């Protein structure tokens, strides 16, 4: 890289960090004011919830962008450690819980307490958060997160009782996954990012994947990630 590029990359990296901090402060105040929002009238509550949702999405997208940047320019190290899956999922739910509380959504984690698995917690967290933020937006009132050992790996499913993924989104996603096409529509971009992260998890010749369907046990949409 030349000096101009280095300068740009440094500015970019520190700007992202700075934006991330701002968004974190925002999210923290959304969380802190959750109780207050509960007492608002429906109209205010709805707009509070919208703001919270958009900020959560912003932060998540920023994280995606930053991760892709680090993969490209910093050879992002994958940290495959053993994690207890239940605890991991519980933390993910907690970090976006405000969204669920406000929308009166019941969230259940179905996972054996002592199930453990190997993965990069930070990266897989960004996948699950993407799924949860999305579910919080579209589900009616229930979300089930289920994790189980499957096919010598770990399967995590996020089911909701929304109206399901629109057919064109599913088509686009499957097309994107299969063809690795260069042109992506913005709608499916987040999901394809998730797939890339899942794919970066490898074990003995097998790689992870993400799938989207409307096979939810709650008759809504289902997000699935399998990690080897």
């Amino acid at each position: 890289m030349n000096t101009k590029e280095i300068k740009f990359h440094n500015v970019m990296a520190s700007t992202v960090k700075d934006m991330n901090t701002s968004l974190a402060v925002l999210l923290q105040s959304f969380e802190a004011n959750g109780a207050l929002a509960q007492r608002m009238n429906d109209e205010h509550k709805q707009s509070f919830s919208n703001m919270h949702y958009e900020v959560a999405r912003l932060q998540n997208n920023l994280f995606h962008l930053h991760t892709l940047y680090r993969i490209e320019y910093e050879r992002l190290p994958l940290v495959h450690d053993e994690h207890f899956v239940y605890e991991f999922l519980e933390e993910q739910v907690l970090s976006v819980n405000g969204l669920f509380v406000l929308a009166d959504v019941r969230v259940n984690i179905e996972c054996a307490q002592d199930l453990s698995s190997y993965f990069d917690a930070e990266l897989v967290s960004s996948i699950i958060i993407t799924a949860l933020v999305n579910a919080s937006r579209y589900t009616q009132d229930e979300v089930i997160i289920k994790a189980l050992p499957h096919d010598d790996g770990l399967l995590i499913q996020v089911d909701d009782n929304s109206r399901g993924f629109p057919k064109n989104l599913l088509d686009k996603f499957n097309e994107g996954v299969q063809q690795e096409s260069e042109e992506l529509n913005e709608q499916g971009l987040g999901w394809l990012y998730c797939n890339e992260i899942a794919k970066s998890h490898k074990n003995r010749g097998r790689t992870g994947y993400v799938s989207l369907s409307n096979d939810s046990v709650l008759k809504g949409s289902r997000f699935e990630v399998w990690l080897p």
Partner: protein
Amino acid sequence: MRALQVLIADDFENSRQSIRKILLSVGVENIHVTATGKGVLDECKSKKFDLILCDYNLGHGKNGQQVLEEVRDLGYLKSTALFVIISAETSRDVVMGIMEAGPDEYLTKPFTQSVLVKRIERLVQQNGELSEVKKALAKNSPQAVLTSCNQLIKAGSRYSAWCRRKMAEAFYDIKQYDKTKSLCHLVQSKRDLDWAMVLEARVMKETVSLADAIVHLNKVVAQFPNCIKAFDYLAEYLEEKGDSEQAQDFLESAVELSPRVMSRQQTLVNLSLANGDLDIALKSSQQALKLSANSHYASAEQYLQAAQVISESIMGDVSAESRKKAQDAFSLLNQATKKFPEEATTKLNKVLIESQIYSSQGKRDQANLALKEARGMIDEHAGLLTPVMALEMGKVLYATDQHEAAAEMFDHILKNNSVDKRLVAKTYAFLDEPVGLVARLKAKQDNLIGLSLYENKRYEDAIEAFKKAQKSSPIHPGLNMNLVQTALKLMETTERNQSLIGLCIDSLDRIKHITDRHKQFKRYRSLKAYVSRHFQTSP
């Protein structure tokens, strides 16, 4: 949670208070706060905390990683203390550095209140279950680690996987390699694990061979390109095998992966110096110096090393630029004795490097003066003349043309069987090529040209190339023996030739400093035997 003694360290008042509030809200009563690394050290010295939440950025002084290294090293932590590093930094350098320091937990900012609380609750719960193992680890007692881990596994603990790792390491420590091996095998039934593969390689080194261990480590780095330990061991093993250039390659990769560890930078300085790679030596010695700021592990060593590298880099170069570099080196040496005024070895080292620099700048009088000062110090304290110092002293004597006195110093090392193998190799490295770096590089190039000509069977041209190399580095064993072998090869195809015979005898005569502890001794012995048998010279 209630009874926990907690310390919060963050240079921002807001962050300190927000974490404090979170902890107060879940009933933690004993909370101390501090803004600086020094504050953490002071607090930990006077009080035994259960939990330390330490931000990576602590203003201008020590960072979180340095604080952790220091409190551990000074024994300020109790064996069951939890040290959590919190950081908003995501750059690879920082993350790798923190990981290598090994905190109990690493938490990236931002996090929500509930996540922090959950994390702490779990850490405390886990710590309770593993307390016996942690105590055993702190006491450095493998036997106790094995016993307590076994108990946990038998009781069906959810931390069994962690226990098996600790057990595998403990078995290695007490040299029960078979058990280490079978545990590594067991934990890898479903997936390869970097730590287990590294441990397997270490076992191979002890029970099979160095070469097999190196092959295995190569597999680890191919599969786990971030496994820093594998790079470190590869470099170490390759150096032991005598392949110091490849060792340097791997160590450079390790440094690139995790540049913030001072000791690794210093190892790289030594290795690259030995390989004559001054660019890398300069870079890593400057890095080590930079990292020594605020570090508990800072010593005169980093200053001396940096000055030494500069001294090597300007050997025989009297340009204005190199005079300026010499001044930099002098200033580093002065800082070394200023910061560590009590150390006699540091002073001696300083004076020796000064003499070396004066010599290489053609300032004979000043070089001799510094040498005299060094001699005075040794006369006063004979204990100062350790084998390591003897090598430095010998080099300086050689530089001031006192070859006999220098030889005496080298004998000090080479005739002493208790001296470390690496120091012997270093001494020979100097004896083989007591010339400046420019000459060394030129010789190396011509030698390579000679080798490729030899491979193409152009023996006469090869001889000319080796002769050219010989001019730059007259007594280098490798190239002199290449010359001999080429001359012998040529005589196989043509007839005996008195001038070629003379060349062989002269070349072997140049390298008679080789003794049985030299790595090229066998080759030298057989060539010498061959030449004297066939050409009837006296041995």
